[in-house]
């Protein structure tokens, strides 16, 4: 390490270890994401789903609400929305947009068949609050078992977050809000000579394929084909994810490369 200044940005000797990015979701296991890896064995045999596709929401933002409106407009019982009590809780979501978010929440709750998950129930139904670890558990038990496929909102094309990691570790089929989520993982798989994932749709934003999904969910044969394609995608991603962190270490690779270059000079 060179001497670094007191700013929050380190200008030199900066390196991103992709294997540590993936590993940081699992260890130390502070929010329980590791349990999703073992939950895959349970999901494999689970069949009692309420609908084909669900868009789960916890924190309400405008992009998610746009998608809710589009889903609602399709009026398709097989493509639903679920919302958690996160926004109307006073435990966490307190900011200047709270009023708008509460209005959006009320709008979503009015949708017919919306699955509203109340976290503060009585005794055994009390999840304890809106903290990351119990939100993770809520998602695992309540939302991986609600629909056959989930839509997951990861908005940036430059990063991933825990939503895709949850689905990959548990081998739960998902459709990302932006296809760039798949592309991000593919860039890591390519780096480690693993086969890239071929997603069944080409798009930038999910809005481009909503009408296709609307039609496919109404046709059992087509739906089964799509579902098995999505299952294969996530199974392959899970295999690759594990291969990457079981066989590689970005930090040590970098040091070996650095030492090799030094000895050649």
């Amino acid at each position, binding site marked *: *390490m060179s*001497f*670094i*200044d*007191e700013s*929050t940005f*380190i200008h030199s000797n*900066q*390196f*991103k*270890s992709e*294997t*540590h*990015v993936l*590993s*940081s*979701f*699992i*260890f*130390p*296991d*502070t*929010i329980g994401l590791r349990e999703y890896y073992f939950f895959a064995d349970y999901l494999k045999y689970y069949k009692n789903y309420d609908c084909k596709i669900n868009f789960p929401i916890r924190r309400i933002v405008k992009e998610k609400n746009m998608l809710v409106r589009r889903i609602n407009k399709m009026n398709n019982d097989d493509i639903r929305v679920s919302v958690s009590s996160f926004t109307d809780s006073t435990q966490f979501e307190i900011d200047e947009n709270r009023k708008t978010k509460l209005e959006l929440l009320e709008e979503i709750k009015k949708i017919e068949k919306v699955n509203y998950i109340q976290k503060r129930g009585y005794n055994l139904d009390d999840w304890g609050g809106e*903290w*990351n*670890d119990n939100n993770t558990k809520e998602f695992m038990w309540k939302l991986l078992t609600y629909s056959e496929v989930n839509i997951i909102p990861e908005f*940036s094309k*430059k*990063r*991933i*977050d*825990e939503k895709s990691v949850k689905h990959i570790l548990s081998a739960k089929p998902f459709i990302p809000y932006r296809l760039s989520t798949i592309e991000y993982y593919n860039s890591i798989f390519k780096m480690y000579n693993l086969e890239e994932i071929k997603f069944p749709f080409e798009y930038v934003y999910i809005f481009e394929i909503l009408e296709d999904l609307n039609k496919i969910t109404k046709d059992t044969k087509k739906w089964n084909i799509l579902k098995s394609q999505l299952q294969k995608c996530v199974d392959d991603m899970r295999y690759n994810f594990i291969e990457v*962190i*079981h*066989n*590689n*270490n970005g*930090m*040590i*690779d970098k*040091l*070996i490369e650095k030492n090799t270059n030094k000895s050649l000079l």
Partner: protein
Amino acid sequence: MIFYVHHYYTYELFWYFFHGVAVDVKNDVPTWTYENRYNKNIKIKETIKINCSYKNNDITIYFVNENDWDKDDGYHIFDYNINLIENNLVADRGWNSILNLELKNTINLLNSKYLKYKNNIIFFYITGNLTLKQR
């Protein structure tokens, strides 16, 4: 290759930093047993040494917490977010965007170690609230 990890040893931190290595899990990655089960919630302050290998390179890892900053035969690892978790300064996500002041303190600590010992330091840092990118 030698690493000095400046955190309390846990088997989870071993896998976080050193995934991908070849190691005898049962004998060389310590965890709690019948004999030490009452110490499970006590931070391990003693140095823990683990031998392993990675792509034909022998590796020795020492979890040393605050000790051994003066060693100049290896790389010193310090993770900003793990440090915050160890000091109970963040919730379970391991990141708090209002803690930039704490980052300044961390950088001052690392600079002081570097100025004193001129050793190799690897600093892990998550860049944003939701990105979980490790540098």
